[in-house]
């Protein structure tokens, strides 16, 4: 993970905190919905927080292929033109 990845990882995991009721350790390979056992609406609410944090749009139809934190980091980088 380079510095930009780490920066996004830190921001994303901080935002994910409020949805991580079971306080599961967050790693790049963590499956956001499956490992954290959060429902589809909460995942969309979390993505909305990510959108606002980075001032980007992440259309919902992109999410079907985005499962892990590492994959989300790549989406954030792509959508923000980084």
């Amino acid at each position, binding site marked *: 993970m380079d510095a930009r990845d780490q920066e996004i990882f830190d921001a994303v995991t901080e935002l994910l905190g409020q949805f991580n009721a079971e306080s599961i350790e967050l790693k790049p390979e963590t499956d956001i919905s499956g490992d954290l*056992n959060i*429902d*589809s*609406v*909460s995942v*969309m*609410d979390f993505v*909305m927080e990510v959108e606002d944090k980075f*001032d*980007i*749009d992440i*259309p*919902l*139809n992109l999410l079907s292929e985005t499962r892990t934190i590492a994959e989300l980091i790549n989406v954030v980088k792509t959508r923000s033109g980084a």
Partner: protein
Amino acid sequence: MTTSLLEKHRGLSERYGRMMEAGENAVGLTNDRIVSPTRALINGRETILAGTNNYMGITFDPDCIAAGKKALEEFGTGTTGSRIANGTYAMHGELERVLAGMLDRKHCIAFTTGYQANLGMLAGLAGPKDTVFLDADSHSSIYDGCALSGAKLVRFRHNDAADLDKRLARMEDDGGGRLVVVEGIYSMVGDRAPLDEFVEVKKKHEFELLVDEAHSFGVLGPNGRGLADEAGLEDDVDYVVGTFSKSVGAIGGFGAGNQDMFEMIRYASRPYMFTASASPASVATSIASIKKLQAEPERRTQLAKNSKRLFEGFRDLGLETGCDVVSPVIAVRCPDEPSTITMWNMLLAAGVYVNIALPPGTPGNICLLRCSVSAAHTDADIDRIIALFGEVVAAG
């Protein structure tokens, strides 16, 4: 070795098991007999129905029943075909004309269910090159319609026109069409879209606006046409969607608009083309019912009166309602899932049926006991519901 396909539902099965251990099936309760728009026999007991979306209490109207019986006898039990094949009867066209007249729209398309109306309209309007901006608390049929359309989906914060404004500004203009979707009355907590604020955003950004009036058609506005009618903003709304399974008391749905090309949705929308058309009895009862909604505005007045009585009764008990605005959807917030299930069972045992609403079907992970008021409820019914909520929920 492959995994059993149903294994993914293990967690759901465990959750269902916990609910069943607590009492009745709150998500599949059987009505043994429907006695009236506001009464059913459940487990051998006459129960007040306060969660049926039967807003006008029109399901046992003698004229509607007579129309349904006549159609059943003259046209048979079902159409056995799609609207684009053998399933278009004269009455389907009549239903669309009657509804277009009530809505004061040039065109109206009837769908077989309300769910399919949103699927059909959204998939008929938007395509992969377009973007749909939908309210975060939209009904599942809107999400599913958007998914079927293949359009880019952008979710904005519930009832937040400034957030929509921001997202419209942020999304680059890719040359595709833009559709914004809001609801007249939101089904879970009963709040309304601030339509005037969304119309202001429409003056700033180019998009087409669709309002789903599922819970507000027949209920709001001087003509009963819904939220846009109430707000005096119908000219700013491009497309209206609604259902026959609530205030109309039948089953089916509709989309309406004034555009020259509107009728082409019939030939572009899979949920319209690839399902059988509504049955004759349902179409005939819908026509009779819609005419009654137009001719009898006192039903709306009574519904508003009943809604206010229940809302104020709950507030007097100190219950936390889903929103601050009176509508026929009045939901009470509960602490958590187990207590909500317990209280739902206690209310049922005491003689009142309400809806249970749990995450992820609710916004913000809240648990609700959701009432829907009917014009057919008497003051005594409403007072009984309030008293039982006082005993079960406020005391709990």
